[in-house]
């Protein structure tokens, strides 16, 4: 179900800021990496010392034409070790498996004006969108929330290329992006795209909705890391297999560990591909995705295996 994958070699690895590292990758098995639309991400398979991790990273603007792909990875302390591994263990010459690009955060080309909002490392898909819009000579503006200038990944490049379209907000001096203040009197054919920390995305979407912006004009991308939890047993009814989901392991990872090819795509709770029917459960599903509606969550008969877990002992799935 994972689609085509590519074996790649890291041809370039450099720090963008003190906490962000950029990797450039090229196919090593003769395949050419295909062009990718702005907003696309790839899944990197990371063989960390403790476990196999599959993490989604948005592609940078330099990936649009294909050939080589670039991602920028923020070192995070609370991660399961994926970002630390990218920072400490990957360098020029490292070999990796990556997925075909998937775009869950595309530009709406029927819109006439595009407002791009990025917080921190959320700049990666947003920068690709800015570049695609710039090349197409479309109307856009970019609002970039950073801690301070040295921490603003790609800031100088963005300012040099897009000039006055770039608006900055420095959180270290208390500047905040607010829809009402930053975007008064936006024309009616505007679409807004936001990527950044969870709290920021929620605030931007809520503000815009409260001002009467329609859901159809608002777009966000949030990838979650699975996060751990108490272990529980999962029974795959159709495969007739039972496996224990470990404390630091996702349900999807446990299913894959026993060799079952379960549907998945983004591995971050966004796309809906891994939705699985729950046959039986003796506890409560901890829904951590952004896909199921409130009603679907309450029904409790479906789970997104990439990020969600059971608070209980035993979960039986139709897999």
């Amino acid at each position: 179900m994972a689609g085509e994958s590519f074996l790649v070699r890291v041809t370039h690895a450099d720090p963008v800021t003190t906490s962000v590292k950029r990797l450039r990758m090229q196919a090593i098995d003769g395949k050419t990496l295909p062009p990718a639309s702005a907003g696309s991400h790839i899944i990197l398979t990371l063989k960390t010392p403790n476990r196999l991790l599959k993490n989604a990273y948005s592609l940078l603007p330099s990936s649009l034409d294909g050939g080589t792909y670039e991602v920028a990875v923020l070192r995070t302390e609370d991660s399961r070790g994926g970002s630390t591994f990218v920072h400490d263990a990957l360098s020029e010459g490292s070999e990796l498996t990556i997925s075909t690009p998937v775009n869950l955060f595309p530009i709406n080309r029927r819109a006439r004006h595009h407002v791009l909002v990025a917080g921190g490392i959320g700049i990666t898909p947003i920068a690709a969108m800015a570049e695609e819009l710039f090349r197409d000579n479309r109307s856009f503006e970019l609002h970039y929330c950073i801690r301070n200038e040295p921490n603003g990944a790609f800031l100088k490049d963005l300012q040099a290329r897009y000039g006055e379209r770039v608006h900055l907000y420095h959180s270290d001096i208390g500047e905040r992006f607010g829809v009402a203040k930053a975007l008064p009197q936006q024309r009616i054919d505007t679409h807004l795209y936001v990527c950044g920390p969870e709290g920021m995305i929620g605030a931007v979407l809520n503000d815009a909705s409260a001002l009467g912006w329609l859901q159809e004009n608002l777009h966000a991308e949030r990838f979650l890391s699975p996060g751990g939890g108490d272990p529980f047993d999962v029974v795959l009814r159709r495969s007739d297999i039972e496996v224990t989901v470990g404390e630091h392991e996702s349900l999807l990872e446990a299913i894959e560990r026993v060799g079952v090819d379960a549907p998945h795509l983004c591995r971050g709770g966004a796309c809906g591909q891994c939705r699985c029917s729950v046959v039986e459960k003796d506890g409560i599903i901890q829904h951590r995705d952004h896909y199921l509606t409130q009603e679907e969550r309450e029904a409790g008969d479906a789970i997104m295996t990439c990020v969600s877990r059971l608070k209980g002992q035993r979960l039986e799935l139709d897999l």
Partner: protein
Amino acid sequence: MSDIKSRPIWGRIRPVAHAARHFVCCEGSSAARHVAETFSPNAEALKQVTILYGNTDRNEEAGHTLDALGAEASLHYPTRQTLLISFKAHLKRLHMGAQIYLCGPEAFLNEATAIAESHGVLKEAVQTELCGANARRVQCVHCKGLIENVAYTPIACEHCGVNLMVRDHYSRRLGAFMGVCVDAEAPGDLPARESF
């Protein structure tokens, strides 16, 4: 209902509480009365309402009902063309936060939604309700001429004269149903007339 997916399905207009502005464009007296009924319980929101009314069936009383709502602006136009010229001009000046409502006969909704679309306002962002005749706006696929208010099929194209079968196949860009030659094999042999 046809299984042709492009056939537009009109909805119901419902004032959106948190919209920063309400922009209503309606045609015909039944649409005017419906708009007045729909908006009157929401009188507190009416300071930010603009209503454009096409008084196409010369019904002054329905117009007065709209005026009595006390909207910020209630503007009347004598024909569809003058109504839609004003609609375009207002669209260009609308800002995010505005909710657009369209109410009127099929051919009016056909043309007005296409105008909104051509201004970058997506169909999902416009509330619509069919109120009045279901006569259609049709494009002859042969000469590309547009025919307003087509009440039945088949019909002779008023531009090129070809006998057209009006299909449910609809162009959102043009705001028109497709009219296709119905008697190519046996000229003059027409199926029975059907009203919409």
